[in-house]
């Protein structure tokens, strides 16, 4: 066990975790969530805790709040010293009773939770949830609490704060919700702010804003920040010091620059290597698998593909009806995908990037006709997919498959994996039971999963393994086209890297074409041959990956690139990004936006010149 003791011993730290050990009582007996973890956080300092999923980051944070107890955990050892200010001696939170903790929680330690979507109570207004803590800890009256809440909302830069107060969580966008959660955590000006993956679920643009916000708070108020993330880009952007955790233990700790430049621990190095860094592919045309520490050297051969088109999409438009009125007639339409066109070559990857809600998924699904497009043409191998009847379409589906964002959600929790992978075979071929099983076993080999997993259930696998199963399932019928909708977004970096490599490898071997949908620019840069940037249902810029990334022309593309955190602490941005909120894609019936017009700015590199709404 390596031990790097804290480097900043000059002042009394706000919080000091010392030999923390947390046990969970489960049906299989007690398990250790966190083992002997120690670190401390000083005032005005951001300590980032990084590590894979399940490495104990959240448990450590929850222990600081003494909230682990409510999740069935128990602090089995160690001390959690917290300096309550006023020069008093630090108290050991681990020994405090819950009543005393309640006075500290929310008032002196604020916490931002991982999931902005679920961290707010859906049935209470923002005002109610924001003022609750204030009224309790600071004994404010209703009016005073309200004005303080308004102040907080302004502080976190939420537009139209007055209106927000009366709204419900679901009426806010993810970014706004996360900002409300932050405001809530800041309500009583805590000395320590714990942020547990505050941006993981968010778009790059919103992420950039929130990171800037937390950073500003730290600087302006001198709040101690414990920042938990597994995104190295964010770490580089935020951290003063970094704590690396692995399977419940702390493996390394040090100043951010030291960790990035000169990581001592192999795990840290492996982790850093797995991060796709924007710009890493500068100067190359074709995707190359990522070099991974500790793995057998993967062939670093670039995957070139061919130049013969497989999929041609022209003028694809998909709109969703908004129904209303007594008779539930269509009153308006969501213009989810508006007049997009692209060509995908055999053995190549076309990436769709853009912010949440810009229509990437809808585009992908329209191609497979999982949603019915309104017009346009989709030609696969010379056959018009949109013109097909039900039976034909079903047969064609064998040649185009989809991998979904959430590997857990896209697998049936009640079905053994064998069955799930065998499902397409069952649907399309007349194979016998044994034959099918053999084929599934082959597929498991193909995606490097042990055959013994065939009898397992999805929840028994890790995220990466599940996504491999999803890939195996998509491969079962040997399709030509795979639509990968955020196929790696939910995975840990290291796992993500492996899945990406696997996909590239399969592409090289089987000549697959991918329609790769992602909002992670780093990933997109790594895997694509061509990139299409979407905004508000339209492709605003499309071209070879190299051209688009190295020479973005459209204003939106530029802004998007700028928002991506760079996994390099020296390249920190200083300016606060400001994004325009995306306009509504809902238009009244009969609204016909003009056709998208493009200008060719380079070979195969087109930029939209008509109004994109940006």
């Amino acid at each position, binding site marked *: 066990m390596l031990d790097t003791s804290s480097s900043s011993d000059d002042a009394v730290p706000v919080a000091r975790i010392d030999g923390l050990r947390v046990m969970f009582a489960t049906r299989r007996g007690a398990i250790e969530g966190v083992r002997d973890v120690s670190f401390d956080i000083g005032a005005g300092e951001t300590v980032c805790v990084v590590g894979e999923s399940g490495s104990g980051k959240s448990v450590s944070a929850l222990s600081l709040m003494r909230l682990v107890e409510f999740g069935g955990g128990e602090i089995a050892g160690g001390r959690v010293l917290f300096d309550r200010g006023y020069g008093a001696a630090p108290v050991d939170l681990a020994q405090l009773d819950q009543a005393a903790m309640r006075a500290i929680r929310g008032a002196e330690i604020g916490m931002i939770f991982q999931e902005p979507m679920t961290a707010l109570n859906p049935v209470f207004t923002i005002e109610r949830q924001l003022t609750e803590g204030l009224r309790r800890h600071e004994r404010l009256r209703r009016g005073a609490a309200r004005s303080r809440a308004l102040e907080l909302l302004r502080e976190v830069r939420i537009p139209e704060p007055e209106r927000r107060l009366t709204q419900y969580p679901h009426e806010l966008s993810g970014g706004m919700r996360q900002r409300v959660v932050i405001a809530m955590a800041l309500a009583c000006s805590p000395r320590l702010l714990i942020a547990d993956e505050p941006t993981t679920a968010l778009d790059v643009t919103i992420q950039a804003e929130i990171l800037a916000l937390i950073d500003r708070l730290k600087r302006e108020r001198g709040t101690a920040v414990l920042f938990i993330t597994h995104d190295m880009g964010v770490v580089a952007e935020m951290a003063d010091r970094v704590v690396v955790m692995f399977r419940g233990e702390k493996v390394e700790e040090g100043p951010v620059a030291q960790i990035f430049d000169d990581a001592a621990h192999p*795990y840290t190095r492996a982790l850093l290597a797995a991060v796709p860094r924007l710009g890493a592919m500068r100067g190359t045309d074709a995707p190359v698998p990522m070099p991974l520490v500790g793995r057998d050297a993967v062939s670093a051969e670039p995957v070139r593909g061919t130049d013969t088109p497989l999929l041609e999409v022209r003028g694809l438009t998909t709109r969703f009806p908004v129904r209303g009125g007594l008779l539930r007639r269509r009153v308006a339409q969501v213009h989810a995908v508006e007049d997009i066109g692209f060509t995908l070559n055999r053995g190549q990857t076309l990436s769709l990037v853009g912010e949440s809600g810009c229509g990437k998924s809808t585009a992908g699904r329209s191609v*497979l006709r999982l949603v019915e497009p309104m017009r346009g043409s989709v030609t696969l191998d010379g056959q018009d997919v949109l013109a097909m009847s039900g039976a034909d379409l079903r047969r064609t589906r064998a040649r185009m498959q989809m991998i979904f964002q959430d590997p857990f959600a896209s697998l049936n929790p*009640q079905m053994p994996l064998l069955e799930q992978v065998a499902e397409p075979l069952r649907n399309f071929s007349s194979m016998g039971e044994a034959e099918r099983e053999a084929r599934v076993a082959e597929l498991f080999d193909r995606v490097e999963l042990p055959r013994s997993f065939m009898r397992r259930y999805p929840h028994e696998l890790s995220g990466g393994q599940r996504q*491999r199963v999803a890939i195996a399932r998509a491969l079962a019928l040997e399709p030509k086209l795979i639509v990968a909708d955020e196929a790696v977004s939910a995975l840990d970096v290291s796992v993500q890297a492996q899945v990406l490599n696997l996909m590239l490898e399969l592409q090289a071997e089987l000549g697959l074409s991918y329609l790769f949908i992602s909002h992670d620019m780093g990933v997109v840069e790594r895997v694509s041959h061509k990139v299409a940037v979407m905004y508000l249902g339209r492709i605003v810029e499309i071209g070879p990956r190299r051209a688009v990334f190295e020479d973005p022309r459209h204003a939106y593309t530029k802004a998007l690139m700028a928002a991506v955190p760079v996994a390099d602490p020296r390249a920190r941005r200083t300016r606060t990004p400001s994004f325009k909120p995306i306009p509504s894609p809902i238009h009244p019936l009969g609204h016909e936006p003009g056709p998208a017009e493009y200008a060719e700015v380079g070979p195969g590199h087109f930029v939209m010149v008509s109004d994109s709404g940006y």
Partner: protein
Amino acid sequence: MTETGFTEALRDDGPDEPPRGRWRDVWAQFARHGGAVAGGGFLVFVTLAVLVGPLIWTTDPQTLDIRAKNLRPIWTGLWAADASVSWAHPFGTDNLGRDMLAQMIAGGRASLAVGWAAMLLSLVIGTAIGVVAGFFRRLDGVLMRLTDLFLALPILPLLLVAVTLFRQPLRASFGPEGGMFILIVAVIGVTSWMPTARIVRGDVLALKEREFVLAARSLGTTPGRIMLRHLLPNVLSPIMVSATLGLATAIITESALSFLGVGFPSDFPTWGKMLADAVPRMVEYPERVLLPGIAISLTVLGVNYMGDGLRDALDPRIRQR
């Protein structure tokens, strides 16, 4: 830990122990649930008792022994020395001298058979309608209005109609008791599927938005298979709850039917009917209400606990935890 130990950890980590057989697993999880085992055990006991009981206790439940009427169960002798008891009738006899033990056994057989069959029927109808309504938007309105219709139907006339129309043909082909059994099961089933349908529909509405259903569609799975293979296993838990309540309701409804004279022939005992018949004399002969009453309650409780356990055991997510 070695260096490769850490970097190897970058590989996917998941549980590595060899998987056990699926049914072994289910059983192991089930066995861990104390209540489930007790409930299941009781059900097995009752089922065995009513099936092999008549072989051991050969007294005919319908034979009247008017001289031995109103005997108390043998255990009343413990505190009331002057109670009339007889080892020939350990559970006592009723007011016409029919043996209570034999009636309990025969009644249990009828009640359990009706309960299970009617419950299964109502589950099948309810689940089918619920799944279809939830899955096909276009059928939803119609099916839910159909549910309303059935909720509004007055049961008694329905029963009388059914008895009038079908008793004779059913009696001709299945005999008086068999025919009535089918009729009762059908009527209870047909009039009690609505809550199940509603609940299942609600769950399916939510489930079909889940990605794995979309995934199945993209794999070319037909709607029928999606419903059968993907949706159905995932609505098992509400179905289990319906099943528990359904069994209790079916057993009790059956007794209400015999009460109204549209049930089994009057000399054909069921627990529900024994309970109803004994109510007027419950002060003098409390055992006559208690025996069938306790039997019904324990059965329902047993099914409830077993349902809990089974639900946990069948859900692979809970099973592993």
